[in-house]
């Protein structure tokens, strides 16, 4: 019997094989591995915590209930990111949210909801001043990313936040490799324009 500790050392494909054999612990291991990356991607795409939770949950339920149809010659991460990205894009299309509010979710109605759904930057600096600068920088980056077109946004997030290879992004987003490179290049140009003032400062 493979224990949870042992599962952590297995590859995605091996864990999927165990899950297909009916091992509940393998399902939980896949959830542990991908809940944060998938949630972060969706959250940065839709900018609303409750919606992101729903979409992340929907993604995992879809993926875990369709493990039988997963083809091991592809990367599991590409497959799950593809489903997560499709869920986010579908939601954005439904809501017509191609341009997103910088201060909070467009779904928010009250000021509390606006505050609650605004992107949170991490606290990384050791001193209060550095923390403030860091938070401002993080927020500025998040805001610049939020301004990008959804296709550019998913490409740049998968490339630089998730650290995925171009080929994997192409596989995940069902795009030709050249298109992925173009999107990332354009996204960088737009980010450069949006963030130029930070570097000058």
């Amino acid at each position, binding site marked *: 019997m493979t224990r949870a500790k042992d599962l952590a050392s297995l590859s995605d494909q091996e864990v999927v094989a165990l899950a297909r054999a009916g091992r509940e612990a393998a*399902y939980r291991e896949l959830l542990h591995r991908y809940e944060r990356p998938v949630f972060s991607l969706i959250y940065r795409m839709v900018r609303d915590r409750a919606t992101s939770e729903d979409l992340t949950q929907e993604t995992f339920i879809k993926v875990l209930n369709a493990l039988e149809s997963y083809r091991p010659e592809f990367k599991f991460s590409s497959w799950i990111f593809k489903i997560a990205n499709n869920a986010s894009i579908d939601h954005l299309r439904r809501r017509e949210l191609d341009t997103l509010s910088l201060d909070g979710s467009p779904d928010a109605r009250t000021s509390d909801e606006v505050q609650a759904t605004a992107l949170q930057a991490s606290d990384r600096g050791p001193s209060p001043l550095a923390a403030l600068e860091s938070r401002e920088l993080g927020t500025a980056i998040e805001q610049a990313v939020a301004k990008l077109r959804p296709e550019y946004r998913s490409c740049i997030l998968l490339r630089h936040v998730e650290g995925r290879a171009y080929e994997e992004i192409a596989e995940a987003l069902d795009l030709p490799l050249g298109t992925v490179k173009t999107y990332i290049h354009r996204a960088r140009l737009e980010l450069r324009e949006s963030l130029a003032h930070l570097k000058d400062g």
Partner: protein
Amino acid sequence: MNDKHLHEDELDRFITRELSRLPFHSPSRGFEGRVMAQVRLPAPRTVVALRRAQAWALEPRRAFALAGAYAACAVIALGFAVPWVLHHSAPIALGLDAVGAWFVAAARDLGMRLAGWVLTSRTYETLRALPVLREHLVPILALVTAAYGAAAIALHRLLKDPRGKHVPVSTSL
């Protein structure tokens, strides 16, 4: 490389670095449980194979064919078994006698050991030493009988559905 290009390269590196430093966000507590509640875990392969075999066999025409084959096998086996038993009745009877005798001897031996263990136990000695008067015997027997009766009723109630009615079970997430 001119100053503008240098500036753009620096800005690119800065953006790449800052993007890689963006924090991961986590879903709220209980997320895993909410997902797992809606995931259909596949049955183990043996169960799946058994269900498939069951579904295959329960198809009406196959079921009739299987039942017919089973009946034919039983009749043929019986046809061979009866003459064989009749032909070998003497050694079979002898064998059964031997097995029966062995079981009786084993049961008697077990009974004797149990009785010996009870009679030599301290509990038995203590109970035997208790001063029980003849007039106390009837109330004690009545008490023991009542206790057994109460225990039987309690056990019956415990094993029965609560009040014999259907009780709805709430399944909150």
